[in-house]
């Protein structure tokens, strides 16, 4: 009986039980979520997954690939070139991450709401983000210089 189930369903019975329980909870909430503006909400849920998987991932994957190609300049990837890549990659990642999370503030998309709600100017965020980015790259460059200096002082290291 169990073997027949696995042949038809492809997974053991507990797999189906778990998923059905989960779908019961999700479905109950989903009906309520979709009660108003169901098409837009569905677009958001499915759109978020698609946007992440087919836009964001290829975008940052592609940028990383370009960074590699740029630093390599046609030569094989040596240890020192790899260090250059990583000392650019990490601050770039941190800068883009903060840009992603705080995009509504930095881009001033929420500027009018922000000003009316808090009574404060929404124009401070983008220069702050720029400053954070500069500091991150500068810190990474300083670390790179320090490490390069140490490696030179330790022959064979």
């Amino acid at each position, binding site marked *: 009986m169990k073997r027949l189930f696995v042949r038809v369903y*492809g*997974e053991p019975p507990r797999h189906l039980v778990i998923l059905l329980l989960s779908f019961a909870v999700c479905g109950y909430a989903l009906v309520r*979520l979709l009660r108003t503006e169901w098409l837009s909400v569905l677009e*958001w849920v499915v759109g978020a997954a698609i946007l*992440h998987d087919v836009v964001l991932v290829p975008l940052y994957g592609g940028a990383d690939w370009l960074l*590699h190609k740029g630093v390599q300049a046609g030569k094989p990837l040596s240890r020192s070139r790899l260090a250059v890549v990583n000392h650019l990659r990490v601050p770039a*990642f941190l800068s883009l991450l903060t840009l992603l999370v*705080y995009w*509504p503030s930095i881009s001033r998309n929420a500027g009018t709401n922000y000003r009316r709600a*808090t009574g404060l100017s929404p124009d401070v965020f983008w220069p702050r983000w720029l400053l954070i980015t500069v500091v991150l790259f500068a810190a990474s460059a300083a670390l790179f210089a320090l490490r390069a200096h140490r490696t030179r002082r330790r022959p064979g290291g």
Partner: protein
Amino acid sequence: MRFPPRPVSGPFRSPLRGPWLTSVFGSVLLVGLPVLFVTGLLSYAAYNPDLSHINDQTPGKGLLGFYLFSWPTHPYWLYRLTQGMHVTLGIVLIPILLAKLWSVVPKLFTLPPVRSLGHALERLSLLLLVGGGLFEFTTGVLNVQLDYLFPGSFYTLHFYGAWVFTGAVAAHVALRMPQAVRALRSREFRAELRTSTARTRPEPADGGGLVAAHPAEPTMSRRGALGMAGLGSLVLFVLTAGQSIGGPLRRTALLAPHGRDSGSGPNGFPINKTALKAHVRPQDIGEDWRLTVRGNGRTVRLTLGQLQALARHTAALPIACVEGWSTENQHWQGVRLRDLAALVGHHTDPPGVFVESVQLAGSFRAVALRANQVRDPRSLLATNVNGAPLSPDHGYPARIIVPDAPGVMSTKWVRQLTFGATDFEERA
């Protein structure tokens, strides 16, 4: 029918991808997501939605309100803590979520797309997991920055979305836990942290579709990958947490919407709704302003002078917003809600109160408070803060302040208090 999955080829060639790395990121989320879920549910309870439809932003909740309880007033910093954690942790987990999704992205493109009926159902569940997760994080991030792009009420979307996401997370954990435990045991964590980039090798092929068939040379160790995600969390923490923790950290919250200096002086703390935004006109809160106190069939009208002549008390309480930010304790001065209840004959054990603002439109212009909130001696109708009259943006001439209540329930520009009511008179 069941087909074995093919090994991963194509563009996904990172030698770091594999069940171990995915399980490490998964473990962090396994700790973080339940905290987000519970603090989120607590935030809903904090509005006392079961007391009045006025407080309830998701009246169609059905069984999902099963856990609701009377929100306490002790300890007075509870909501400040739970909601600060909810928002800060949510933001701090974003790099971990992205890293986890990066680690499993080849699975999206596995062939054949559907191996069996069971696999098809699981992929449907994964759509709810990934779509629901990104939806929750996106709506949360947008709302705390006051960017209301999403279709509909934030409360509806974020509350029901949380249940969809949690339902999918629960299934994912139940189905993947044995695999994750096996993967975590397959490599020693500390040894992995000592492994340099040059010595980094791909995980053994697992048949699970994560390990690349033709891995590229490593350009980063697993320690590096974990460190990078962790550093992302740390940077976001430093740039955000100060708006909730306060003190000197507020100055490091450079990108947080409420990490800013709101000016000096007694009224120099953050505002979430200015008088301008609430369409409160000067004449609404000018000399003609009267406070109406009702209950027990009686009505008492007070001028600001008469209100200030009643017994005055001080309470040191924070403003803690659903958006996660909060202030340090402010010293509020005003009349106890229970003393105002006594004015209309509720001398002992006063009931709850229905509070109305002069604000004519917009959400939270009225709120229902429960008896335990009215009875707390720190619950005030405040006219002063930190020794000075309230500024128009902080609710002049009088506002509610209740220990532990979400900021939006501390109604500003109060014009009427009806003891024993939970709704507008015309509807009650």
